[in-house]
């Protein structure tokens, strides 16, 4: 099956198992899916259904036990850590449930961190300030994470993820630590990232309030995709 031209990431029959005591536990069972530029895909499912495990495969944070991940049409089954590291560095923006900002750096410096990690990234301080504006934090660049609300912190994290102009933005339960209003703001920002910047946005969540944002929804249970919805 040829890739449609705007496929950013594809999972091909990926499986992951974990040793749990004596037994082997299957967290992902031959999952296949494609994720497209400019679209927001929700991974929905109860806790333990395998959403995070799938995200970490798509984000090159681990490799599947079998099956393969394709990035822009290229299989990663033989890729080694330096190549995966390059992908994470250049192509992937991450948003985490617990934000994972650096407490010693202020908001602007946190947004600039990807440029410290990747010295070839052509991102300027002005770009970072512009991103802070875009996430509604104009003039808050000098605040430290501890001086910000949870919603503000997550918006800094979204700005950080966007600095490198990623091909994909992967978010794991991005609204779970937020109240309703901030959750909606963050969800809108992720949608804007897909629509205005052409990212493939992949959001794992069990928050049904995100459903209206989605272009596609993958419902997971027990490590399998049990239903697919196109909106």
């Amino acid at each position, binding site marked *: 099956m040829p890739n449609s031209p705007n496929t950013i990431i594809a999972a091909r029959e990926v499986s992951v198992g974990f040793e749990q005591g004596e037994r082997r536990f299957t967290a992902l069972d031959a999952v296949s899916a494609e994720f497209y530029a400019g679209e927001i895909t929700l991974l929905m499912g109860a806790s333990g259904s395998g959403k*995070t495990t799938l*995200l*970490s495969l798509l*984000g090159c*944070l*681990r490799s599947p036990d079998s099956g393969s991940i394709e990035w822009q049409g290229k299989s990663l089954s033989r890729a080694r850590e330096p190549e995966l*590291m*390059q*992908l*994470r*560095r*250049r192509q*992937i923006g*991450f948003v*985490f*449930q*617990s934000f*994972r900002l*650096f*407490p*010693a*750096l202020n908001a602007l*410096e946190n947004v600039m*961190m*990807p440029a*410290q*990690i*990747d010295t070839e990234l052509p991102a300027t301080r002005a770009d970072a300030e512009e991103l802070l504006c875009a996430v509604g934090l104009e003039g808050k660049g000098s605040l430290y994470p501890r001086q910000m609300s949870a919603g503000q912190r997550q918006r800094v994290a979204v700005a950080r993820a966007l600095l490198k102009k990623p091909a994909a933005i992967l978010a*794991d*339960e991005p609204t*779970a*630590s937020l109240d309703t209003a901030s959750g909606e703001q963050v969800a809108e920002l992720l949608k804007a990232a897909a629509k205005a910047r052409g990212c493939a946005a992949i959001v794992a969540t069990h928050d049904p309030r995100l459903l209206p944002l989605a272009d596609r929804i993958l419902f997971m249970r027990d490590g399998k995709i049990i239903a697919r919805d196109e909106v």
Partner: protein
Amino acid sequence: MRLAIRNIAHDRTRFLLTVAGIAFSAFLMVFQGSLLCGFERASSRVIDSVDADLWVMAHGVQAFDFAPPLPSDYYGKIRGVPGVRSVRRMASGFAFWQRPNGSRKTVIVIGGDAEIGGMYPVERENTLPEDALVDTSDLEALGLDQLPAEVEINARRRHVRRAVAGFGSFLGSPYIFGRLSDARQALGLGDSGAMFLLLDVAPGENAATVRAALEARAPELDVLSSREFSSRAQRYWTLQTGAGGALLTAAVLGFFVGVLIVSQTVYATTMERLEEFATLKALGASSWFIVRIVAVQALVSAMVGSAIGLALAFPLMSAARHAISWIYTPWPLAAALAVATLLLAALASITAARAAISIEPGRVFRA
């Protein structure tokens, strides 16, 4: 490395604790090391102060402080060995010192030929018959609150007119310097006894040849270079006496305690930031990027800590000199300990960084 510096500035309590741990270790290591070095230096102090090519003494003498007298005929016998330019004699031994107030103390009486030279504290022109020179740091122990004073050594009258510096007692028996004839009298050596013969080799003569000739002439004696006798005495005092053994053990333990504290604090500080390193890794940072942050953080703490530790050690050691006059810090010791602290901190941080860089980046998704 902005993140490294900012992390230090951000978590000041942690930084201060790390610095305090390293400062204490540096202080402990330098203090214990200085006690050992000072003890070693004091144990060969008299030998090192004398300017002689070769020392001749009874067989098996381990230290300057304990030597049996040589039979008097060796003096002439050894002077006749070809290549020997000059021979001087020294006598030393334990004696009783009677303070002006009547109480007694054991001392070590040392007397030498007039022209001993080197850094030896007795000069001919300043030392009269029946003069006894004491070290400034021993004045109190000898019951002398003012000079000049009249004392008795083995029931013979002596005049203490002046004190010298740098020959403080390290075993509780002060050194008392004076003329050779006075020492012989006090030690009951008759008028030709001596414990040591100090030789100078004539210019142009090979010291090894002269030494071989001496050993052939008097095989029942020990002939040692100054350096050999010095290190023999240091080895004896450090390894074969309880006092030296205790100091050596304390210095070694102090070093290892220092090593442990430095590596523990640096390691713990690094491990505390493990989650940040996991985030960096997920964001695509290389291992080298993370190692650099870790190493910069550790080295800044180690430099500040060892600077503070050494800066505290020197004034405190000066203060301690009232009680421990022989404590001594050779600058290579301080430098070596500072370098060791930095290396250790780097090593501990890199060991901790190995844990940081080998963590599975997938853990960043855990809430």
